[in-house]
């Protein structure tokens, strides 16, 4: 028996390695200057899916919601071993908070149809909320296991997983289908050269249309033929809009988001009135003296 595993991933700005170039002169971060990367823990979720595919046989379907450029993370997923990909993209999805995001993803899952497991990274590094996974599980009406390190066993009806808890771990048994959020506990495999050769040609329909426009092709039949050819070779990345997944427009994007941002303050990184201490005996002695005098020490 073979399983269907859905993995939801996100393309995020690299907030963890902010270099000087991404800093504005006033000490705040220039968010648009940050490179877009595959969210780190989503790579762990993909790796777990691929390990399960190796162990038990599975079809791994990777989905993401985002702007058209987010297709890059899907191609990366194919380079690593994903079988099929879905890009959920629509202007009306923009501005979604976690509730609206999880609703949109649940519509995507329903369109995909049957599945055994849904895997998500624990959290994304742009928001660090860890909310979309549990919310998606609730929307799908399936059980969830958070903070999964590894899967001990999968049988036709249930999964046994090891997960982190505060101060230790738990082994849990759960019926399928289920949703797991995965922590940074495995080593994501590198992209495979042979897969890169094949899947670098994977395209969404919009990308095909754009390439045709750039090349001044106008023949719609050629486009259709090309799309069918990609589909046959497993190189067509599905691209779905809000209407394609039958999403209620009141529940997606800004309209579907109960939380509003009232204010954003940039954290300014500037040197405070720090005292420079020489790394010498004299410098250190004076420091200790000061700290004892103001009762910080002693």
């Amino acid at each position, binding site marked *: 028996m073979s399983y269907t595993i859905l993995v939801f991933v996100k393309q995020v700005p690299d907030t963890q390695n902010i270099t000087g170039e991404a800093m504005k002169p006033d000490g705040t971060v220039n968010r648009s200057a940050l490179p877009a990367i595959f969210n780190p823990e989503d790579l762990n979720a993909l790796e777990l899916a691929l390990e399960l595919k190796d162990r038990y046989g599975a079809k791994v379907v990777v989905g993401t919601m985002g702007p058209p450029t987010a297709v890059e993370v899907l191609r990366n997923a194919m380079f690593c071993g994903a079988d099929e990909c879905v890009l959920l993209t629509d202007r009306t999805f923009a501005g979604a908070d976690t509730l609206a995001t999880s609703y949109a993803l649940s519509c995507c899952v329903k369109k995909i149809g049957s599945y055994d497991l849904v895997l998500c990274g624990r959290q994304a590094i742009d928001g660090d909320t860890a909310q979309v996974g549990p919310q998606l599980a609730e929307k799908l009406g399936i059980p969830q296991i958070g903070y999964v390190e590894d899967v001990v066993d999968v049988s036709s009806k249930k999964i046994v997983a090891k997960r982190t808890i505060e101060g230790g771990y738990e082994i849990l048994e759960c019926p399928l289908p289920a949703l797991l959020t995965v922590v940074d506990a495995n080593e994501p495999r590198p992209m495979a050269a042979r897969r890169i050769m094949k899947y670098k040609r994977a395209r969404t329909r919009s990308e095909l249309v754009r390439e045709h426009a750039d090349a001044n092709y106008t023949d719609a039949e050629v486009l259709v033929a090309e799309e069918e050819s990609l589909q046959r070779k497993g190189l067509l990345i599905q691209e779905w809009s809000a209407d394609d997944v039958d999403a209620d427009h009141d529940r997606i994007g800004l309209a579907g988001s109960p939380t509003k941002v009232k204010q954003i303050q*940039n*954290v300014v990184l500037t040197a405070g009135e720090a005292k420079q201490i020489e790394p010498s005996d004299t410098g250190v002695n004076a420091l200790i003296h000061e700290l004892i005098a103001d009762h910080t020490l002693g």
Partner: protein
Amino acid sequence: MADNKIGNVWVFIEQEGGKIADVSLELVCKGRELANRLGVKAEALLLGDKIDGCVETLYHYGCETVFMAQDPRLEPFTVMPYAKVIIGLIEKHKPNILLFGATMKGRELAPRVASEKLAGLTADCTDLQIDDFDDKVNKKSYKNKLMQIRPAFGGNIIATIVNTWDDPQMVTVREGVMKLEEPDISRKGKLVKVVPELSDAETVIKVIERVRQEKSVNLKGAQIIVAGGYGVGGKENFKLIQDLAEALGGDVGASRAAVDAGWIDHDHQVGQTGVTVRPKLYIACGISGSVQHRAGMDESKKIIAINTDPHAPIFSVAHYTIVGDLNEVIPKIIKAFKAKV
């Protein structure tokens, strides 16, 4: 807004073996402050088994009501039965605000509840205030809303979030950021026993094995912390950090890089994925100071940073900067301190 009677402030109480988590008591204190501001009650949601002993403590910290659901199926903690009980209580009593600790349990449970209730949820808040909100986009104004303040974008921005839908306004709050007030043992409250209505659907997850240890160190209460980072260079060299901590009567902390390298146990980790601390003195040795680390220690009263790199971000939050090799500086500090006392 025809209904001007607003609901109460609720705090989800996290407990392990009948011992209430520190963060829950911190939130009871904050919840009481918010409730006073709004003229409503602070109330607790206490779930688990063999938890009668927690009730008095919750009164002492300021809960006027404790909703207690006691059932063997609620122990150990699993998300689905907890969510079911809490949703039932929300539907019945309609609280205005619901606070969870941003712990592993809280961050797994709160989104499940919020999703079912179609409520907004803000993760990992570091401050909460009451204020009015003008939603200029939708031309609506709201009175006395909960301002949910949290770092985002890897700690590079601080966002104030407001929940504009129906109550409850739900948040998870980071551990160690709300002040724990002194309990008042003369305070009394009301106990409301809740009978959980659980079906097979909520109890499908079975805990086969559970291994847990109390933390080997409690950094949250430490007055002096000496923390080592990747710059310490190796496991053996961490002895230097321990020596300094011992000499000063403090505890040992670490950055994520040092923990990931296997030089020291995760219990010692300070920062966003570790513990938030605010000691009298924090000495950062060989820690470059990622935003994630700084978020966990930048409210320390005095910060000394020792680093060979004069551009290390840790220096931006330090009160005393020592540009130098920790292998030379630390012995000098130990020597100087021993000579003075």
